[in-house]
């Protein structure tokens, strides 16, 4: 056990590093998206600011800070101001229980690579992300504009609907691991079948669940093809139509932070977390798990962006029908089959 002072110090350091990495990740996911979508559409994407446009996120951030923060006169002010804060707070909080790697010992302090290890980690993430809808819904309502209101309504209905399919797709993984702790779920995926197929949950029969999770996650984070709450061809910009400057940027950051959290969760639950081949000198062996984890998150984010550059947007009734009539029954079937197999094995 650590003494209370060391514990607080270590926690603060971990929080600062994690939030810093997350915000850096957000900035460069935006850059990656602009670059990749640009190349998909036969354009260059950002090229002017720095080499390969690498300084573009910093320039954008500065621009957001110095822009005029306009508050339209017709808004309901308390909630109009609170909504972007809520969105960003919930988006940043859910990273707290995500583990990035195994336990490490630095300067005699033995600590997990994670802000806090709770034994209901997965439920905490689901709970916090389920609160994130308030930011979007309240932004839509408090803006007092029809486009925003429609965006907010769509967001709340969509997120509540897809949360069910998302949650059910994870239950199969929970049955296999027998724990809510993200660390234990990852530990259960170590090793290989017959020496070459890794024991990731996706290869343990959860491949259907993985695709349900993938699709439900797109809807949860309001991304193409399910970005109906901000469908710019019909709703101007949806729930953030009336927002400008840093308040708009906060919604933007919240969306990308949620994407990263969802990508982390997918790697932890389905793709074996930080498990991967270890080789080389001890220092490389210490860094490799982190590298494997980040690689998985990167691949997941790349697929996100790829899908955005490829697929058209759903219609709203199609979105609801897809969620309730296809994803939900498939998720329930997957859950029943997984439970039967585990029960038969035991």
């Amino acid at each position: 056990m650590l003494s209370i002072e060391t514990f607080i110090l270590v926690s603060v350091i971990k929080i600062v590093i994690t939030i810093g990495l997350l915000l850096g990740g957000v900035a460069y996911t935006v850059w990656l998206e602009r670059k990749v979508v640009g190349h998909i559409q036969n354009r260059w994407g950002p090229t002017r600011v720095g080499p390969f446009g690498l300084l573009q996120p910093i320039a954008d951030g500065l621009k957001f800070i110095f822009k005029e923060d306009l508050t339209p006169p017709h808004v309901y002010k308390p909630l109009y101001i609170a909504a972007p804060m809520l969105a960003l707070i919930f988006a940043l909080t859910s990273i707290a229980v995500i583990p990035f790697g195994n336990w490490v010992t630095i300067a005699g302090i033995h600590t997990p690579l994670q802000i806090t290890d709770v034994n209901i980690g997965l439920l905490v993430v689901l709970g916090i992300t389920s609160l994130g809808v308030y930011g979007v819904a309240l932004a839509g309502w408090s803006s007092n504009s029809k486009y925003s209101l429609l965006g907010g309504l769509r967001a709340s209905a969509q997120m509540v609907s897809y949360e069910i399919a998302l949650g059910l797709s994870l239950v199969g993984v929970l049955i296999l691991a027998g724990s809510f702790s993200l660390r234990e779920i990852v530990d259960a995926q170590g090793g290989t079948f017959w020496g070459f197929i890794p024991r990731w949950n996706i290869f343990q029969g959860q491949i259907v669940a993985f695709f349900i999770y993938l699709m439900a996650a797109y809807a949860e984070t309001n991304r193409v093809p399910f970005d109906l709450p901000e469908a710019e061809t019909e709703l101007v910009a949806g729930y953030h139509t009336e927002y400008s400057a840093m308040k708009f940027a906060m919604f933007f950051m919240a969306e990308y932070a949620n994407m990263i959290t969802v990508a982390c969760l997918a790697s932890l639950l389905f793709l074996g977390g930080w498990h991967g081949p270890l080789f080389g000198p001890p220092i490389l062996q210490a860094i490799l798990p982190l590298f494997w984890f980040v690689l998985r998150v990167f691949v997941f984010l790349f697929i996100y962006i790829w899908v955005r550059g490829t697929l058209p947007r759903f219609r709203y009734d199609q979105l609801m029908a897809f969620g309730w009539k296809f994803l939900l029954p498939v998720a329930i079937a997957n859950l029943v089959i997984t439970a039967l197999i585990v029960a038969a094995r035991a």
Partner: protein
Amino acid sequence: MLHLILFSVFGIICVAGAVNLLAQRHPINSALSLVVVMGSLAAEYLLLGAEFVAAIQVIVYAGAVMVLFVFVIMLLNAGEEERTEGSRVALLFGIPGMVVGSLLIAWVLITHSGNVTVAIGALPGPPKTIGWLLFHDYLLPFEVTSVLVLIAIMGAVVLASRPESTQRKKEG
């Protein structure tokens, strides 16, 4: 000690949220106060050691039920309520009734709980214990409740689909 302070703080936030729920004139502010009540209740459960119940409280009540409340308020575009003088019945019976009721509850709690106080964190509620209780010891009540919920869902479907079917009859 820290537990006790946090427990009292969240208790105060919870009661303040409940009072604010009644005092606010706009439905959406009331709904958000209820979210605060749910959230602080979850924190109280967490402090008592019932992590699973706390997480479910947030996911189900704050994350789903209250989102639907807010959704309905937004959909109906409910405006501010008018402030009335209050009915005479509420003044004569409601407030005294509430005072007597809360005093009664307080009296029962103080006299009948004796000196036995439950230490904070002494009632552990890990998911496995709760799962065992639900699916083993209390399996029948649990399943009966789920049938009840199923009936409620079917009722909602019937109620929601009725206008469409009458419309079809008219068209046919």
